Each structure stands twice: as structure tokens, then as C-alpha cells.
């Protein structure tokens, strides 16, 4: 029975690969280098391209979705990393011991909130704030930075997705950091303090020495979560297709969100090429996500099971 998870994982990889073979034959490397996602015209007879049957005029390129996934995830990291470091430092060093467990539990509660609830909050709270105050201010005052000038549209898009993702991954990074601060030898910590260092210096020492690998690993684990997150991004990204995002205020789309939003219309393709293209996209997404997670796990020396330590 212990081989069931491995069997399931391998069959997911195997089947998704198997179903994406037609699309791999059809698009080849152009899948990564082109930008247009064109489902083709169903009313015209399908044509044979590269030995596989595809709808007339169809072409699938994921450049936009790759870009969207990378940009939103990096923005999320940019916000979540300093936030998590400060949170971990505060929980570990600046709070009384009695409050510590409670704070950790609250941080863990974040990881348990369903992603659609984050999406809902993003739509009703975050988007109006971004639309009415934050983005117009940025557009007016920060327009000298490339990508920061331009019109503000709806509030949904890159910034909203990045912020929502950062809230979702901060608990992961924080919990790995707190844990590694916790497991640093008590002697080192007391020694540093008793030699006259301030707590900030202790934190700096821990993060650059003892906890360095956990910090990198935890950050990668958070990144892995951000790359694969679907529903929250689907709800606040604005679902951009076939248009380049002009500025940071633009709508965006990610690989995961595109699969979720597009699969039901892909059913209607009688050649099955649209579904195959989504399987290809899923394969790429899974590949990236698994690599990031495995490296993160290796570096951190452990995984995170939502608040339960796993070694």
C-alpha cells in the first residue's frame, strides 16, 4: 500500500504526457515560443498538420501564460519573502513565549483557508482598493519606472494576483523559517545574546548562517505553491488571452488559471486537439512545479504538511 502514492503520481505524469502527445507533435517547440492561443475554426474541415489532425487554423502558444505565471509568482515572492522573514523573526524573538504557539497556529490557519475564499476576498475587497486608490496613485507617481505607466483598468490583474498569492504563500515560508529558527541549537542563540548582540543581530546571524538553507528551501516551497495555484488567480487575474499585458495594471493569465477557464470549451473540439494542448500545458506546469518543489524540499531538508513537520 505504501507504493500507492508513487503509483498515483507516476500515473498522473504518464497519462497527462500520453494525452498531450498529439499536441506535442502538432506544436513542437513552438508551443513555448509563440504567443497566440487559437482554438481553430470548428465549422471548417480539420486539417492534418505534422501528421496529426487539428482544427482548421488552430495554433497553441503558451508564452503569455508562462510570462503570467512567472510574473505573478515573482511578485508574490517579492512581497511574501520580507513579510515572512519579519513574521518569523517577530514570532521567534520579539514575542513572549506564551503567545508564540498561538501566533504560529494563526499563521497556519492562513494556509487552511480555501483558495476560492481568497479569490472572493480579492474580488470584493482588494480589487476596489487597488482600482480606486493604489493603482491610480502608482500610475501618477511611479510612471518613471518602466511598466508602471499607463491606464488603470479594473483592479483585476497582475498586482491583485501577486498580492493574493503572496498572502497564500507567506504562511508556508514563515512556518519553514520559524521551524528552522526553533531548531537552531539553543547554545548558539544564548551564546550570541550573552555576548551582547541585539536580537536583530541574532536574527541576521541565524538567517545568514544556520537557517540559510531552510530559508532558500522554504522560499522555493512557497514559489511552488504560487506556480500551481489555480482558483484564486483565476478569480482575480482578469483572464487575459492573446493580448500582451501593456503595463503592471494589466489583466493577466497563468498556466493553471488558463487550464481551468478553458477546459470546458475545449471539449467541443471534435479532433481532441484543444484538450491535448491543455494536457501539454498541464504537463509543462506540473514539470515546473514538481522541479521547484523537489529542489525546495531537498534544500530545506524537509517538506511542509500544513503545520505538521515532515522530515
Amino acid at each position, binding site marked *: *500500500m*505504501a507504493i500507492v*502514492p508513487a503509483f498515483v503520481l507516476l500515473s498522473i505524469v504518464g497519462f497527462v504526457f500520453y494525452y498531450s502527445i498529439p499536441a506535442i507533435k502538432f506544436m513542437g517547440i513552438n508551443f513555448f515560443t509563440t504567443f497566440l492561443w487559437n482554438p481553430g475554426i470548428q465549422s471548417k474541415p480539420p486539417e492534418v498538420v505534422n501528421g496529426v489532425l487539428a482544427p482548421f487554423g488552430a495554433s497553441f502558444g503558451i508564452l503569455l501564460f508562462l510570462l503570467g505565471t512567472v510574473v505573478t509568482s515573482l511578485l508574490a515572492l517579492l512581497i511574501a519573502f520580507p513579510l515572512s522573514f*519579519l513574521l518569523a523573526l517577530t514570532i521567534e524573538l520579539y514575542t513572549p513565549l506564551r503567545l508564540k504557539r498561538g501566533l504560529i497556529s494563526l499563521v497556519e490557519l492562513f494556509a487552511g*483557508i480555501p483558495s*476560492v475564499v481568497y479569490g472572493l476576498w480579492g474580488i470584493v475587497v482588494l480589487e476596489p482598493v487597488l482600482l480606486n486608490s493604489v493603482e491610480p496613485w502608482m500610475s501618477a507617481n511611479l510612471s518613471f519606472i518602466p511598466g508602471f505607466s499607463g491606464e488603470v483598468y479594473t483592479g483585476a490583474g497582475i498586482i491583485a494576483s501577486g498580492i493574493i498569492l503572496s498572502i497564500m504563500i507567506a504562511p508556508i515560508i514563515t512556518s519553514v523559517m520559524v521551524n528552522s529558527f526553533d531548531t537552531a541549537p539553543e547554545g548558539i542563540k544564548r551564546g550570541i545574546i550573552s555576548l551582547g548582540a541585539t536580537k536583530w543581530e541574532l536574527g541576521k546571524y541565524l538567517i545568514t548562517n544556520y537557517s540559510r538553507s531552510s530559508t532558500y528551501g522554504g522560499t522555493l516551497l512557497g514559489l511552488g505553491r504560487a506556480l500551481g495555484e489555480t482558483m484564486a488567480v483565476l478569480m482575480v487575474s482578469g483572464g487575459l488571452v492573446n493580448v500582451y499585458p501593456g503595463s503592471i495594471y494589466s489583466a493577466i493569465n497563468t498556466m493553471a488559471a488558463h487550464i481551468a477557464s478553458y477546459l470546458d470549451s475545449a471539449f467541443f473540439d471534435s479532433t481532441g486537439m484543444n484538450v491535448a494542448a491543455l494536457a501539454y500545458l498541464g504537463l509543462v*506546469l*506540473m514539470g515546473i512545479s514538481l522541479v521547484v518543489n523537489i529542489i525546495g524540499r531537498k534544500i530545506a531538508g524537509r517538506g511542509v504538511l500544513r503545520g*505538521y513537520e515532515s522530515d
Partner: protein
Amino acid sequence: MKVISNDERASVTWKNIKTRRGKDGAARALGYLALLVMFGILASIFGYIMRGGATHITIQMLTTVGNGSTGGLLNAIVGTWLLVGVGLVFSLPPGILGALYFVQRKSMTRMASIMRMFTDVLTSVPSIVIGLFGYLVLVIRFNMGFSLTAGGMALGVMMLPYILRVSELSMKDVSKEQVANAYALGADDIQVATRIYIPQAIAGVLSGILLAISIAAGETAQLLYTASWNNSFTSGFLHSRVAYLTYVVWYGIDQPGQSAHNLAFVAALILILTVTALIVISKYVNYKRR
């Protein structure tokens, strides 16, 4: 090596003490600010969902069926639990037996560590990819159609690694001497599992199951193309499409009209309360173990 006298050392330690303390104070202030921001967001999420949900919740909503934008939520509430139940049916046996295998037999072999890594990695497969797999393989290839079975199995894939790993962690705490004694007295694997490991680790196992349920209840992406959605209850049971709460949140808030939004908020309220309660109970059970 330069020899440093005590006086020099003291002067180094106390050098710039004001700026160093200033930095420490600034870090502390920033840290408290970060805490404030994080818990402000948490309070905002809970606050908005509570307010939006609590002001619009009615008995009628909880007792009638609906289509995701009008009507009630009864089919979605029941459907969520049905899906979680089917997910448990598929994930509980391999989860607990797998955990037993890991602690009891091959905990240290290379094979076991590879299997363990696969288990951990399974938690990081993006949920939409599991949904895609469920659609391609369960719904189409195995001809299940959009159904409770397909949705439940897709959830089971997500639940399995959590049940397995948390159970394993709690089974690790069982006294090795006691296990060795049991074997020495002639007990077999099954007796050791049912008389020693499971009774002693039951709290941890239960806590893992609750955690897995809390995750499964909040999942959406796996279900969109496996369980699909159902406007009411149908007689097909395992073979019929099924409704679930997260769909209402996603679909309802996107529909025009206040009533659809209200429904989404109420669904989110039920979800968030359920999930929080499950996590708190899970933590409490796990805490009592120690």
C-alpha cells in the same frame, strides 16, 4: 592572529551601541507591523465573509437546492460531504496501511525513502493538473462521466499524502521497545499494527484525517471537470454529477445580481467555518496526544 584585549573587546561590543539598538528597535517595529498587516488581512477576510454571509443567510438557503446563482445551498452542502466521503474511501486504506508499512517494516531502506519522497511530491502537484488528470482518465477513459466517483477519487489523490504522512509521524512516536517486545513474544505484523501502533497513534491518525478533510472540503480545481455540478439531487448517486460549496463561491460571485453574490458569501461563510473548525479540532487532537 591579532590578540584582542578585554578592553578592546568591550569597546567593540559597546561600539555604536546606540545605532545597533536603534536597528534592533526598527526591526522590532517592522516585525510588529508585519504581524499587524498579516492579522489585519486575516481579520479582513474573516470579517467580510462573516458579515456578507451572516446578513444574508436564511433557513431557506440551507434547506432548498439551487443552481449556484439562485435558490439554496442544500445540494452543495450535501455534495461537499459526499465528495469528501468518497475521497476518504479511496485515500484512507492506502494512507493508513502505507503509514504502517513505513514505520513497521521498511522505514530506513532506500526504497522507503524514495516512496516517501513520492508521497511528499504528490502534495505539490497543482490541483488543476489533478483535475485535468481526473477528466482525461477517470471521466473519459474509464467512462465514469462527470460523477461523484470521479470527483471523490480526484479529491482522494489530494488527501492521501496528508493522511499517510501525518499518520506516519504519529506512529513514529510509538515506543520501539514495546514493538520489539511484542515481536519477541510471537506477535505478527497484523497484531502489532492493530494492538500497538493504531491504538497508540490513533490521535495523530485522526488529526491527519481531519486535516485532509479540511483541505478536501476547500478544493475546487480538481472538481470542476470531474464532479462538474448538479442543480439538484439525482438518483444516479455514484454515477451522477454532484454539487459542492466551492463552486458556488466561484460561480456566484461572477454572476450579475445581488442574490448570486449573497449565495456566494453564504457558501464562503459555511466553508470557512467548517474548515477552521476542522483545523482547530485537528490541532487539538494532535496537541492532546503529547
